[in-house]
């Protein structure tokens, strides 16, 4: 069957499946999406696979195995436009906590036969390995932002995904500030918008699952958290959850923990031979973002 519709592929690396599930969670829109795009590769939903190249690839998950490193390059080669979905693909995810520790020690804690486990020392973002055209944030991503990214692709426009902080979303919702009013520690001032200020709406502080906003002042927030009598170790933990290896959150934790503690991290990224690639991809990634070029 030939199709004039653009083809969509969904790829998974190390992840919980929650972000690709978000596409299936678009219950009201799923059949329309399937009408506008030819779903060529989406293993969680379909046995049928069509060979590339693909017009739009959504990539979930982080790079944690030697095989992943090869596979993501193949995915990039077969994709005209590549969009990462979620915190794992965009910053390494919760599994990037290994980057602050010894992965062999981790393997020995979980597995009786750690030698069976094939894994890299680090969990890293897709953009550390290949050029990425757009990064959608969140742990998990927001389904309306996902639909906007897909619509934007179909219409040839830029995705409408604001890079301001969760604080702005609280103001838009009319929330009372949980920190000011109740002294609750909150990462809202440094966290990328997208969730609609969910946690403060449910009377808790933001825990940063959308990762850092455009220009986060983490040092100022650290001081505010100290004023709330939060111990430094707890502040480090607060920055080190689902986006622990996103650059500004990683630096915020390091600044507090200092270079002498267990929190000392390997050079970023961990493997010297990957450093060149990663920097190059970060640069081309930034360029892709600036020009807003639709791949092709």
């Amino acid at each position, binding site marked *: 069957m030939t199709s004039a519709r653009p083809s969509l592929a969904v790829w998974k*690396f*190390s*992840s*919980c*499946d*929650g*972000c690709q*599930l*978000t596409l*299936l*969670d678009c*219950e*009201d829109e*799923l*059949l329309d999406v*399937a009408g506008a795009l030819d*779903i060529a590769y*989406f*293993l*969680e*939903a*379909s*046995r*049928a*696979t069509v060979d590339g190249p693909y017009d739009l690839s959504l990539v979930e998950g982080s790079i*944690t*195995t030697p095989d*992943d490193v090869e596979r993501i390059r193949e995915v990039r080669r077969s994709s005209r436009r590549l969009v990462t979905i979620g915190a794992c693909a965009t910053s390494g*995810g*919760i*599994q990037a*906590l*290994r980057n602050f*520790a010894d992965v062999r*020690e*981790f*393997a020995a*804690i*979980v*597995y*009786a*036969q750690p030698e*069976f*486990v094939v*894994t890299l020392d680090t*969990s890293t973002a897709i953009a550390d390995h290949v050029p990425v055209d757009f990064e959608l944030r969140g*742990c*998990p991503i927001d389904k309306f932002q996902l639909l906007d990214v897909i619509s934007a692709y179909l219409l040839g426009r830029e995705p409408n995904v604001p890079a301001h902080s969760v604080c702005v979303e609280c103001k838009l919702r009319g929330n009372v500030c949980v920190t000011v009013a109740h002294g609750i520690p909150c990462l809202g001032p440094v966290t990328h918008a997208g*969730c609609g200020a*969910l*946690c403060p709406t*449910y*009377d*808790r502080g933001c*825990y940063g*699952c959308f990762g850092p906003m455009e220009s986060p002042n983490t040092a100022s927030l650290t001081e505010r958290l100290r004023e709330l009598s939060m111990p430094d170790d*707890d502040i480090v*933990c607060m920055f080190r*959850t*689902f986006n622990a290896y996103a650059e500004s959150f990683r630096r915020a934790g390091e600044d507090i923990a200092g270079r002498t503690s267990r929190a000392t991290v390997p050079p970023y990224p961990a493997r010297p031979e990957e450093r060149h690639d990663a920097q190059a991809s970060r640069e081309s990634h930034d360029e892709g973002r600036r020009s807003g070029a639709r791949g092709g």
Partner: protein
Amino acid sequence: MKVDALARVEGEGAMYVEIADGAVRDVQLQIYEPPRFFEAFLRGRAYTEPPDITARICGICPVAYQMSSARAIEDACGVTVDGPLRELRRLIYCGEWIESHTLHVAMLHAPDFLGYESAIDMAADHRPAVERSLRLKKAGNDIIDLVGGRAVHPVNVRVGGFYRVPTKRELRPLAETLREARDDAIETVQWVAGFEFPDFEHGHEYVALTHPEEYAVIDGRVQSDRGLDIDERDLLEHIEEEHVAHSTALHAHLLERAEYLVGPLARYSLNSTRLSPIAADAARSAGLGAECRNPFRSIVVRAVEVLHACEEALDIIEAYEPPDRPAVDIQPRAGVGRACTEAPRGLLYHRYELADDGSILDARIIPPTSQNQPTIEHDLWHFVEANLDLDEEALKLRSEQAIRNYDPCISCATHFLDLTVREVDQT
């Protein structure tokens, strides 16, 4: 013969089958989902963090991880959460059963029975059924959304209860959604009951939580159909886990027994007398007896559980009186806490050892799929052996279906599905 990646399962895995001289020689469910080391990096984190952190083990059943972890930590701190807070926990869990099961029934499993590659292809000929399923799935997500804040990785669950509890008024529109969902669920049971099922039965020991008054979800005793009857806290002491080279999920066996099965078939067979009235009627009309031993019929059992969850959720909403406080106060202390809950795919055990300041010294998590993995291999062995007369493509498809019967969640069990059937040439 070889299929490169098994589709319509959560996570990634492979199945390897070796056939020689018309007999099956080896079956391996290979799980290559890269390890993420949750139990390792939980060490040193605060006792308040596991509900948020362990939710990330699985995007399809995050509520299960939140419930097992919260209850295990409460156990360590000597606290029991009951009353309206327990009811709200059951309510959000009903939402997850509806969402996760409907995803599997309609989008992952039904295409096998009707001969489609995906639910989207199926929609071309069965649009009303697919639309009904999407509506039903959405109703489940609506519960999680409202009680938990969002459908994937809800933010409102904490150790001790919730951050904020809904008002009666906030829950009211949900009741309307659920009354419609209940009708959709009845039709879904009727729809899947009409599928054709291969004649195949297994004799595995069934293990599930049981509760004197409820179709157990959130707590209870761990029982089996062959006399196992233990406190939920003691599960780890009754199983052994084995690490095999072809899987990053650990295999579990019952001590001094054999492999066992958790999940919808086990739950139904142990608890069918405690189904809600409409679900019990629907089960009977669908031709299910008091127990179900044909894994292909698990699709009917899941549909019945969805209907039950809709009724249960409605009852909870109708009887709901908001608690005085959104959470019970918890003072951390040194100790060990353990708990089981019924994730959509079966028994999920968490164990935490806390230091006196509440930091985590050790964490153990036993997800349902790692308990079922040896059983799935066992079933596949017998199923392939009984169907060696099928041509290659048909055998491959049937084998994949036999795996999907268990809705294996490979992300949970860490723990990738690609099917290889290798005919060993003996000449």
